[in-house]
């Protein structure tokens, strides 16, 4: 059984600023990172590999420099790393993206090994839509289990998976037959740290690049052309300026008391 992890290279959003004039992201000099939620998906796939011996493939759609993200996945122990990169994939919204990723997973399923699980982060920190994972599941007709914070049981012989979903204020235990697509939250696990030998091997390993010649998708249905969503504007929401309460140096107790009163008045301290 093959586990496919979808990972994305994203700008380190804590360092991204918005150009006040053009309302676009200033991306110059901002380092790229692996989407943090995806690192948990990757970790869970690798834990299943450690437990059941299944193979793991990491796929990522992005520009050629997204190869770095896949090398990180290789350093952590994935067996295949495939970059989906083609100019015609560019400018895609979540619909077009999920079509490309689904096509790649289908190809892995037919060419490499039967796919049993697809793991995605619950969302990316740049787009924050949380739509790509479910989009893949829909296109592949896989069961979708979103917001997973624990895999309760994976039964490979019965081809069933049981997971805990982290919902607001409660957990939900659900079971589904394989193949299934999971989106995961951070509570699922603690990602591992790469070993140096693996990093060095990953630096020399081959990252396969699949373009649209490989996937043979209708160019009208992918990339910018296949994306019905258009971003008209990006802006930073205005935020009310805060206030300084008391004097934390001279009278920390008094300042803390004032803060508590203030929060209680706004009903922000559950008692």
């Amino acid at each position, binding site marked *: 059984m093959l586990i496919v992890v979808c990972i994305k290279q994203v700008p380190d959003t804590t*360092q991204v*600023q918005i150009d006040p004039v053009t309302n676009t992201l200033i991306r110059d000099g901002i*380092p790229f990172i692996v989407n943090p939620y995806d690192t948990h998906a990757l970790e869970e796939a690798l834990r299943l590999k450690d437990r059941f011996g299944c193979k793991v493939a990491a796929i990522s759609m992005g520009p050629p420099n997204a190869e770095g993200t896949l090398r990180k996945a290789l350093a952590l122990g994935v067996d295949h790393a495939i970059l989906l990169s083609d100019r015609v994939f560019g400018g895609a919204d979540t619909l077009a993206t999920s079509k490309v990723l689904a096509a790649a997973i289908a190809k892995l399923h037919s060419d490499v090994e039967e796919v049993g699980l697809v793991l995605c982060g619950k969302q990316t920190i740049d787009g924050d839509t949380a739509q790509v994972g479910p989009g893949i599941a829909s296109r592949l007709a896989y069961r979708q289990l979103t917001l997973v914070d624990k895999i309760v049981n994976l039964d490979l012989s019965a081809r069933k998976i049981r997971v805990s979903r982290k919902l607001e204020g409660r957990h939900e235990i659900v079971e589904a037959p394989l193949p299934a697509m999971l989106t995961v939250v951070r509570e699922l696990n*603690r990602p591992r*740290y*790469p070993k*140096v030998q693996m*990093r060095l091997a990953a630096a*020399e390993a081959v990252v396969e690049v699949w373009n649209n010649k490989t996937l043979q998708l209708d160019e009208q249905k992918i990339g910018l052309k296949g994306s019905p969503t258009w971003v008209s504007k990006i802006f930073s929401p205005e935020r009310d300026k805060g206030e300084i309460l008391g004097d934390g140096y001279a009278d920390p107790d008094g300042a803390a008391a004032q803060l508590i009163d203030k929060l209680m008045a706004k009903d922000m301290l559950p008692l």
Partner: protein
Amino acid sequence: MTPNPTIFTPLLLISMASFAWGCWKRFSLISLGRSEDRFDNIGTRFGDMLLYAFGQKRVVAKPFGINHFIIFWSFIILLVANTEFLLHGVFPSVSLTNLPDGILMPLLLLLDIVSLLALAAVAAAAVRRLVVPPYPEARTMEAFFILFLIATLMLAYFGINAAKISTMQEGGRVLARVWMPVSSVFAGMVPVAAGAYVYGFSWWAHALALLAFMCYLPNSKHMHILTAIPNCFFQRLGKPNTQPREEFTVGNTFGVDRVDHYSWKDLLDSFSCTECGRCQNVCPASITGKPLNPRAVIHNIKVNLLENGAALKKGGAPQTPLIGESGEGSVSEESIWACTTCGACMEACPVFIEQMPKIIQLRRHLVESEAKFPEELLNLFENMEGRSNPWGIAPTERTKWCSQLDVKPFDKDKTEYLFYVGCAGSFDSRNKHVSVAMSQLLDRAGISWGILGKDEKCCGESVRRLGNEYVFDKMARENVAMFIERGVKKVITQCPHCFTILKNDYRQFGLELEVIHHSELLRNLVQDGRLVLDKTTQYMGATVFHDSCYLGRHNDVYDAPREVVRAATGQAPAEMGRNRNNAFCCGAGGGRMWMEEQVGERINLTRVKEALEQKPETICVACPYCMTMFEDGLKDVKAGSVKVRDVAEVLAEALLR
């Protein structure tokens, strides 16, 4: 019972063979280690050997060390008598008495007195070990057996001489009273009739003790009498404040997890340790009840080598793991992570054993080859690699501390000094005050200085000490390339960790900088009259100074920060009981700054209490980590009225307010 060459000669040959075999075995074990060049600067090495091995400089630095000095030099002098004894046993015609009287008599007097001194020193050592041992586990059978053997040799020596004297004519006895005064006293106890018997008994007692020593020596901790001398010769020239680089190519191993991956010098270290315990008595981890004991680390490396040596020689795999919880012969992970790399152990070791670098090698293996480390370090490692600072704060915020100040970027054509602010000075809210004070002082002194601003990156000190050499290597290469590209030649740091990395570690990456710690620069500016103090500040009250390990012990800067405080306050800061090269770590070095401390008493609390004994109103520091550790510690002991200030803040207070 009389000396008999026919019995003695085969015994001697067997003992010599046993001695040679034992030494050869040890030597072949040491040769399992990896190569390391310690043959440079032979002249300096020879001088160091004379000073530290024969001069016993570090041994006598502690009060009881004089006792060892006496035993050591007695041993050297008595080599004459013992060599004669062995030769005489085989060839009865060989004897010191063949020497002309002008040489013989003074020599006999010397040997007589030296033997008495040695006997007294051995007795003192035994009493000390019983009553006030250097550490509780020091009362070993092995230690007492060695003392017993030495005492036997001395007593037998007197026995032999006393027997000879007792059978002498009156004239001989008178002469003996002058030239062998101690033996003569013993002679008074030997009846003439028993002379031959006492002689034979003493001779054989001496012979057997000597031969037993020969056989036992290479197999005991007493081996140090052979290894400590070359160990002083092969000591690291300069300070052991950096770690060697690693080569990151596929197929290499990283760090050390088996004893033959240490260098031969590391293995020689393990055979040079006589378990005096001075290292553990100064180790902040050992003292505060952590599982780390530097003496035990060295001992376990030795035991591991002895247990695995045979298999390793045949190219096999080690049976006893070097890192593990299996007791003797293994070093536990918990103890590996407890080290603050303060260097106190290496400063204390009389024979220059390098404990700290060995611990870092073990860390390297855990981090690089196994990705196994305390979980709180995961964020640190990722933050350092991803955002080049320990907290993972956006690099764009590096210049926030000076957003209200007129600070210029470093420009190689216009600026003399790069002020390398460091992560703490840039991001830590308390330490930003130090950066501001520094910028004001530099401006006041008219120094031409600038910063790298948002382009400044972490120096990587913590990750290197934590054994993440791979990430450190990357960070160091990036920094070195940037420094070269920007034309940086002179650097001011306010953090001893940045200071030591830029000054010492980056040399390994081909960068020679003129690095000055801010305390040295400020001291110079005051001395040169570029910072003129027309008043001293009383604001600080009574002060006490705490030495940062990486400023003091690792880089020998002791006076500059004290002089800055004295210039500012008009008074030298008070000294804690442990100061300068004996100073006690704050607990944050070696990456411990970023780790939890759950076992034993907290190191910073121990140090804070020591500082409070001086009843200070201000504790002066010269390191951002020390600052944090002291501030936290003062809160814990509810001594919030005592303030912690960096020396730059103290000076700025006197000068600018």
